[in-house]
């Protein structure tokens, strides 16, 4: 990944959600399940906001609304048409294509040089696996490829959907540090949804705690710590405790 340059101008992408509502119908019972009701959120340009909540509080639905994967029943989504970089809970790689091509396809679709895939893979420590099929990679390595793909496209908006929750804690820790480094190289507008309070405190500029159903904002915290941050930072640990209490 290249160093910040003139080409990497500060992002101007702002996410503005206003009065979002979403109801799903339970496939088994047919009963309506209101996940989001009159939910509003603004993510300022260059800000990384973490949305923390227990399972089923509508975090992923919220992220899918922003990604354009779910149409809200009510409210407005005002984000323009930014170039997205998304890291899902699972890596979502095309197993039949070599790692390099998985990244190159996203670059190609974004109108960028596919040859840049190798540099991005080197930045996440996977240069030697560029020609391998994803099936030979471990879970952590596959998720690194997903991170590389998300950042390779020089996204205006990065969406992170519980990106490390499927990994063991040791691997997840390494990837959080990697993500922090990538963010320091070039801040972007970002939305992270997670059920891990420490992950939110470590990575985000602002943490929003969701609770209830439909989800309501139970608490909001600004993380006033310079990057790079450490998971051992007592301030972050204190914030972690407050988030847990608010959940």
């Amino acid at each position, binding site marked *: *990944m290249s160093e910040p340059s003139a080409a990497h101008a500060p992002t101007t992408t702002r996410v503005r959600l206003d009065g979002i509502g979403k109801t799903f119908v339970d496939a088994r019972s047919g009963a309506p399940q209101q996940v989001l009701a009159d939910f509003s959120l603004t993510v300022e340009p260059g800000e990384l906001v973490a949305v923390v909540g227990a399972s089923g509080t509508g975090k992923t639905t919220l992220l899918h609304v922003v*990604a*354009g*994967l779910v149409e809200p029943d009510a409210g407005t989504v005002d984000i323009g048409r930014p170039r*997205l970089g*998304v890291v*899902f809970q*699972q890596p*979502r790689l*095309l*197993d*039949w*294509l070599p790692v390099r091509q998985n990244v190159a*396809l*996203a670059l*190609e*679709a*974004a109108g960028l040089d596919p040859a840049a895939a190798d540099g991005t893979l080197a*930045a*996440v*420590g*996977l240069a*030697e*696996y560029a020609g*391998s*099929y994803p*099936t*030979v*990679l*471990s879970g*952590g*390595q596959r998720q*690194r490829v997903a991170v590389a*793909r998300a950042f390779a*496209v020089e996204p205006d908006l990065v*969406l992170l959907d519980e990106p490390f929750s499927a990994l063991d804690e040791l691997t997840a820790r*390494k990837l959080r*540090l*990697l993500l922090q*480094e990538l963010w320091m190289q070039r801040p972007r507008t970002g939305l992270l949804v997670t059920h891990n309070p420490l992950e939110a405190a470590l990575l985000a500029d602002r943490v929003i705690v969701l609770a209830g159903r439909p989800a309501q904002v139970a608490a909001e915290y600004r993380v006033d710590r310079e990057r790079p941050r450490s998971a051992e930072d007592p301030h972050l640990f204190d914030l972690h405790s407050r988030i847990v209490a608010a959940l």
Partner: protein
Amino acid sequence: MTATDLRPARAAAVPAVPARPRRRWRALPALLFLVLLAGAWQLMAVLLDSVLVPGVPQIVTELVEIVADGSFAEQLGITVLRVGLGFALAFVVAVAVGIAMGRNEFARRFFEPAVLLGLTIPGLVWALLCVIWFGIDLVNPVAAVALSSAPPLMLTIYQGTRSVDPDLLEMAHVYRFSRATRLRRLWLPALAPALFAGARLGLSLGWKVIVLVEVFGMSSGVGYQLNNAFAAQNVAAVLAWTLLFAIVMAVLEYGVLQGLERRTGRWRKAVSV
């Protein structure tokens, strides 16, 4: 970036390769079966001593004659062209309809009766109808093969489409893959197992139908030669043409389809250790 603890382990780079029997022995069971079949047939021919059950040497003599005088290559070429055109037409239509059925509820409901109807109509009926409708024109065998092989192809592609991981479709959506990229890099590789299964089923039906069409309404092709041999009560020639036809099918299966399948499925063999 620090390189201290971010580097992955190297161990997984080399995929595990399961032990496989040596190449020269792999064909042994199939060869053994064929030798036993030929032996049993010859025994039956000797015991029955009938012109209706020719012995293996007679069949082989007939087979060598057919190949040597060049008629096999010529007639087979004609039949293969007809099957190839019909199957290609069925394949293109089936990929479009099968994917549409898997992706769109209206398309599924719209095409479902046609597919089910197509599956229930015997190949013999298609052969007869196409002879009546199209006479001895090339359209006749092409249409008959397409009509008989398209329904099973559509069904397998539809079922394959339903099993494509929706997570990958979402990924393609957020990264704004073009339609062509989605088709080439996502849909077709994901559908490869269904496409091969459908191709086998469709081709097997196509071969059966083409023989019927050539028996009923054509003046060339393997089916026509079979009909000639039947009219002359030359059972050895009927069996020789059938055997040659089966050999060509085996070459197509082992030489072409399985080769393609191995090529498209290489990534499946690359597994983590």
